[in-house]
């Protein structure tokens, strides 16, 4: 796979198609999303990432269940999340569920942790949104230990203490799943990612690129500060949002009603304003290529690019067509162009096999040191 990974992420919204008035059922959306993920692999994409929500109009309460099903149905696709809620899930449950997925997928998985911004979800799981940052910090610190230590003694503020606890199954090949931390504008989360040398995923799609640049640059500086490598070696992922047709005008005409009525930004800025102020690109495949290559100008060479493709009520047929264009015309060019002038020190996107090899090299080096 090497270098950069390209893929799609889904929020999992159930939205009425504004052009037809049709609202999909939970059943049809769930079947559609797995069709979409399988099609992403078929057109040559590398990653599928599923969101986690516990309130309508969203269906994916358990991304790990969806990804486990997909693990059996796909061959190459890396199954990730966008995001796994670190605040309201029990870290023990997360350690076990995602280790299980790691085995079932032969290591074709990672996860992106997020806090979730829906106030009522926290009390439903016995938590308080005002404690969002402390929850994310403490729960992740425990999650890491559960994957790295066979027996864990632990006590903290947000969970019952553990004595001699072993989470099961143990990580595949002794390599803990790779973790990205996602945040739109909380420097504490960028700092957390930097502290551990984990990846940082910037949602990127709802805010201007200048905001994303501030967060990513802070993460890169802090990654270097904490001794994990140079700022250029930090692991960065970006979101993106596109709608394409051969002719730019056709894309704009077809996408506008979906934009105008979209759950997040609908009835606010115009399509043209939002396109100029955020990374949203509605136009020809070449316009998408040019815009995406421009992301590198403000975040540096990065490792993972995901796009939001299935949302706002777009019908399945349209989403699959979009994936055909993405995999057929856009991503091959991006792979080639992003590889040009990419400094040698910039790491490839993290994969299980590469991290397993790295761990073996490190273990051998430690052994040699003990022997000498």
């Amino acid at each position, binding site marked *: 796979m090497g270098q950069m990974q390209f893929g799609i992420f889904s929020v999992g919204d159930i939205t009425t198609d504004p052009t037809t008035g049709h609202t999909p059922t939970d059943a049809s959306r769930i079947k559609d999303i797995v069709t979409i993920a399988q099609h992403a692999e078929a057109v040559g994409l590398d990653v599928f990432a599923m969101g986690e929500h516990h309130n309508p109009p969203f269906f994916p309460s358990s991304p790990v269940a969806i990804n486990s099903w997909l693990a059996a149905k796909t061959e190459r696709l890396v199954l990730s999340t966008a995001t796994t809620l670190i605040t309201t899930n029990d870290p023990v449950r997360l350690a076990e569920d995602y280790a299980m997925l790691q085995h079932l997928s032969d290591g074709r998985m990672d996860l992106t942790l997020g806090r979730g911004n829906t106030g009522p979800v926290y009390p439903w799981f016995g938590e308080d949104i005002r404690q969002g940052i402390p929850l994310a910090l*403490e729960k992740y610190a425990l999650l890491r230990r559960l994957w790295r230590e066979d027996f864990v003694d632990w006590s903290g503020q947000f969970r019952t203490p553990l004595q001699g606890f072993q989470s099961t199954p143990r990580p595949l090949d002794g390599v803990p799943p790779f973790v990205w931390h996602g945040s739109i504008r909380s*420097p504490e989360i960028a*700092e957390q990612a930097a*502290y551990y040398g984990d990846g940082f995923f910037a949602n990127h799609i*709802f805010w201007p690129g200048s905001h994303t640049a501030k967060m990513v640059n802070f993460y890169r500086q*802090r990654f270097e500060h904490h001794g994990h490598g140079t700022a250029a070696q930090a692991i960065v992922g970006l979101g993106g949002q596109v709608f394409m047709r051969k002719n730019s005008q056709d894309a704009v005409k077809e996408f506008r009603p979906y934009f105008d009525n979209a759950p997040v930004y*609908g009835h606010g800025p115009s399509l043209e304003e939002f396109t100029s*102020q955020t990374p949203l690109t509605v136009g020809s495949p070449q316009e998408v290529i040019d815009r995406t290559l421009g992301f590198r100008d403000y975040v540096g060479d990065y490792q993972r690019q995901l796009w939001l493709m299935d949302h706002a009520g777009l019908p399945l047929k349209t989403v699959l067509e979009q994936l055909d264009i993405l995999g057929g015309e856009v991503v091959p060019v991006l792979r080639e162009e992003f590889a040009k002038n990419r400094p040698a020190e910039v790491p490839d996107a993290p994969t299980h096999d590469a991290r397993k090899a790295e761990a073996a090299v490190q273990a051998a080096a430690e052994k040699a040191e003990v022997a000498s």
Partner: protein
Amino acid sequence: MTATRRLAVVSGGLSQPSSTRMLADRLAKATVEALGERSIEVDLTTVELRDHARDLTSMMLTGFASPALEATIDAVTGADGLIAVSPVFSASYSGLFKSFFDVIDPASLERMPVLLGATAGTPRHSLVIEHAMRPIFAYLRAEPVATGVFAATDDWGSDAGGELAARIERAARQLASRVETSDRAGANDDPWGFANAAAGLGGFQPG
């Protein structure tokens, strides 16, 4: 050597020209003069919220400001003093006026000296500054001066005009003395709190 202070004026009037803007301009002029007497030059920014009406709605929905609105917010929150004037609609400040103070970072007006003004068709709304506007700025931890200036339609065309001028002058002097000693320079230089995050995750000890 003369010092310079930044003064921002926010006018929530809807018509053009509006009596709200007229009051805002008179308050600004009087404040600039009062600061001039203290040998302080004023860098004045006047904001007509009407010009940002669509961007304010968009920001309420998207959470981020258009480039034009962002520059305006930065100019207001980065000022040494603020004059905030709203028309009275349905017994309170206008929705447009409230929208502006809804979308800015709630910490960004901390310690801001503020002069409050309001306009209305009738003097029966004269307490709107006290019962509606002042609480917003208390919440924002801003520091409104004691005198607020209310102008009803009558004030613009009667003997009462002299009283209005006296109120404007008193309020402007109060604001000027606060702006003169303002220590807000740099108060909003790191609105996202990067320095705080880099100083160590709020005391959390990672494992």
